[in-house]
């Protein structure tokens, strides 16, 4: 492929792609299509702007082209609809200005019967206004009043709680309060416990002595046991001696 061919191919292909894209965009935007104008009316012009989209089932089918105030004080809104979207605008179509809380305002077209007659070009349809912000304010206003009342009540309660807390503070921490008296009692108890410590020490000594004494008792008992055993043996021998003699008389040594 020669350099000339490559350059030519690049320029031609890219130019065709760009032109096709622009043509497609222009035709889809209705640049070449016939555009029909309808007039709507509203008591107020609030929320209406030039270029505002006109949507049907969420899809943009046209836009507001002009706004004017007639001699009766009504706001006339002229909308432009391309020919390919004319099928959505019927005689029984309703137009609603929808002002959402978030996002741009738009005119929503609703057509219940798509088979009905087309909307006459001279007919001036009314626009209903659905205002999310105002509706929300209406819903929220009583709530806000209630919340204000609750806040006032809470403030009163908090003042009472404050007063109660002050009194409680006095009763607890005042000079004649509970806590200072409890402190005094505790100090007395601590002093008495310190005195008791010496008594406990004495008892401990006594118990030690007693345990040592019981050791002596054991030794004494074993000695007594030995003595008793010896006595038993002596008694047994004496019995033997008494039973073997004819004259069971014996002389005490």
């Amino acid at each position: 492929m020669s350099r000339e061919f490559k350059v030519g191919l690049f320029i031609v292909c890219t130019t065709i792609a760009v032109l096709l894209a622009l043509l497609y965009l222009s035709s889809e935007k209705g640049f070449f299509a016939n555009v029909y104008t309808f007039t709507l009316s509203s008591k107020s012009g609030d929320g209406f702007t030039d270029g505002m989209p006109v949507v049907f089932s969420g899809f943009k089918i046209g836009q507001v082209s002009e706004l004017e105030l007639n001699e009766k004080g009504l706001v006339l809104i002229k909308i432009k609809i391309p020919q390919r979207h004319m099928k959505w605008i019927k005689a029984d179509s309703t137009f609603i200005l929808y002002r959402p809380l978030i996002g741009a305002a738009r005119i929503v077209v609703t057509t219940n019967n798509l088979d009905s007659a087309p909307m006459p070009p001279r007919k001036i349809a009314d626009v209903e206004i659905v205002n999310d912000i105002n509706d929300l304010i209406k819903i929220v206003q009583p709530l806000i009043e209630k919340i204000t009342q609750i806040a006032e009540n809470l403030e009163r309660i908090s003042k009472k709680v404050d007063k109660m807390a002050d009194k409680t503070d006095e009763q607890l921490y005042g000079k004649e309060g509970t806590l200072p008296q409890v402190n005094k009692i505790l100090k007395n108890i601590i002093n008495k416990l310190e005195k008791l410590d010496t008594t406990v020490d004495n008892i401990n000594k006594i118990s030690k002595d007693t345990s040592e004494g019981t050791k002596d008792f054991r030794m004494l008992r074993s000695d007594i046991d030995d003595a008793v055993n010896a006595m038993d043996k002596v008694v047994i021998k004496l019995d033997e001696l008494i039973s073997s003699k004819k004259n069971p008389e014996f002389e005490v040594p």
Partner: protein
Amino acid sequence: MSVLENIGRLEIKMFKAFTDTIMFAFKVIFRMFQRRTYSSAMRMVLLNQIYFTSVQILPLFFIVSIILGSLLVGIVFQLLKQLGLTDFFGNVLMGLIVTELSPFLTVLLITLRSSAAINTEMAVMKVNREIKTLEIFRIDIIDYLILPRIINGVISLVLLSSLFSILLLTSGILFSRLIFGMSIDVYSNIILNSANLSDIVISLIKCAIFGFFITLIPIRFGLKASQELTSIPIVVSGGMVGVFTAIIIIEVLSLITKLF
């Protein structure tokens, strides 16, 4: 006083440079619309310039556009989804990415690749006295050297920026399906509703102006080189600073134009 004198001198110098550039631009535009400018030699140079600037760069440009564009579209879509601004994705895609970022990214790519090359080429030609030689042979340097490069800049910028936008919109189909689960019909409908023909025309005009100045300024700076080799880096850096300044000025002017 010396400080004020320096400031005044700098201002006069900047103003003179600005007016010189504008005068030079008018001279070039005037020659652009003269039929005798388009001689066979000039057309050959123009063809070669378009080849070097646009055709040779195409594979790299496609790769960069797809990677950068997909990243950009993916990040923006993800961000819009996280912020709950899905309704505005058409406006963001058309108003920000297609009409603002694609010309900007394209002009940056072309500036980095071609403007620096043109600036150096002109400076080297001046140092080697090739321009003097052309003048001796009575070859018009505006017709033979300057205009082909400037026309190439205009054509390349407009076409490459459009290609970038087309690639971005194509990758948008993929990402809108992946991130929003959106069908092609819905996607194209949203894009069509968000697209503003006047914005696109302004964007194309902006690309043409970008292309004009990112070649004109380097040429002008390149021709300022003296007979010494050491003057080449000075004029090249000066030219590049001038190009980036021009890009910023054009961006600001286009934004102001959109406001009205």
